């Protein structure tokens, strides 16, 4: 069964996020990584880039497809997980340990789901 940690929030587009003060950490769910197949390249945004809730934050290239990853909040990119540039497969092996981007929240948050709601949403 797909791993869905209780303490995180989820978007319908299969991102997870965690809010610590005004810092929002974003990654992709276990379900998302299993659908994508092996992640081979992450096209990170520049730090400082301004992103809007529900709009593309970055794109992920996998063996099977290239997909946009959406931002859960309005905010500025403060950090990207550079470690993943050399080992993008970590997103497959540990999707919740492998955060992609940290944003500083400046505005609204997109509609999101609890772990329980997300499990229902993906039909498990």
């Amino acid at each position, binding site marked *: 069964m797909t791993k869905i940690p209780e303490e995180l929030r989820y978007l319908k587009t299969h991102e997870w996020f965690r809010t610590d003060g005004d810092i929002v950490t974003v990654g992709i769910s276990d379900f998302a990584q299993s659908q994508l*197949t*092996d992640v081979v390249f992450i096209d990170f945004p520049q730090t400082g880039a301004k992103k809007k809730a529900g709009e593309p934050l970055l794109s992920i290239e996998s*063996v*099977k497809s290239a997909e946009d990853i959406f931002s859960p909040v309005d905010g500025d990119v403060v950090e990207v997980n550079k470690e993943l540039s050399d080992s993008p497969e970590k997103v497959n092996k540990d999707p919740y340990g492998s955060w992609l981007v940290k944003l500083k929240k400046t505005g609204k948050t997109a509609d999101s789901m609890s772990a329980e709601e997300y499990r229902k949403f993906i039909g498990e």
Partner: protein
Amino acid sequence: MIKETALYDRHVKLGAKMVDFHGWNMPLYYTSIIEEHMAVRKAVGLFDVSHMGDIVVEGSDASSLLEHVLPSAVSRLDSGEAMYSAFLDANGNIIDDTIVYKINNKKYFFVPNASMIAIIFNWVKDNSSGYNVKLNDLSDSISCLAIQGPRSKDVLDELRLEFSEQFKFRYHEAPEYGLNSITGKSEIIISGTGYTGEKGVELLVNAERSPELWDSVLEKVRKYGGLPCGLGARDTLRTEKGMLLSGTDFNRDRNPYECAISFIMTNDHDFIGKENLIKDTKEIFRGFKLNEKIIPRHGNQIFNGNENIGTITSGTISPILGKAIALGFIDRKFSKSGTAVKINIRDKTEEAIVSKPKIVP
């Protein structure tokens, strides 16, 4: 309704990610496409390719019918030999590619792609009037297990199965695995074929008994550092080697010259498509190497400056090169290996170098 192979339960038990592949519920990967790919290149991999078809052509006109529907000199095969070929339509375009096996002068069988079994069966049947042959679609009663990679012979040795060299096949008597509907005897066909570009064999066996064979083979595959492999790795492996994928690289729109498989054109007789076959096609099938991991996908366009000079039909990451690679059709003027071209990939334009279809030697 989605179809399952006789090995479906094995895949689920191994934790495979299952996907709908042309109406078949098949393993895409077990752990990782790239790890499975490397297992085949460095050691050995085991694939379930039972979704592929098995059609027997039997009768005194078997070889003349096959030389009517294929552009290849099927009659030059010896018993126990196989060859790669393709069914052409009246325009000379490829409907499906296939491997044809000669059992004896009056009995052959061929393996169409999974999505093409009914279409090809009907195509051959509709073109068989006046030929003394019987056609039998045995696809549902046969499983095919592909054992591919440099250690594949070691796996066979352990199982006391004799290895078959490329495009040869043999029979291994095995009462415990039940009746093989292709031969009508209790035996496994061991065929020196595959779709990975590695040394290897494919075992054709009674479907019902095939889970036990899968278990025995997998145990030995793991002993030699190998893995069970899904269709994801099968696709990255064939793409590195420039092997065509039916329905993706061609779809009744390309002929064998265009697909760079003119070596199959060995048939001197009249065959379907011969009259309209154009040799000097505008485009030809080629490989493309990128220096990035941004992957061209089916339908992406190839450019020289502003001039559109071709179309990508397959793209993936090459686990061996660590870079993106692609296959596609390009104007012959730009088809020389080493030519620099540009490929439009979503909102980007990436540079690529033309290569022979076999991108990874």
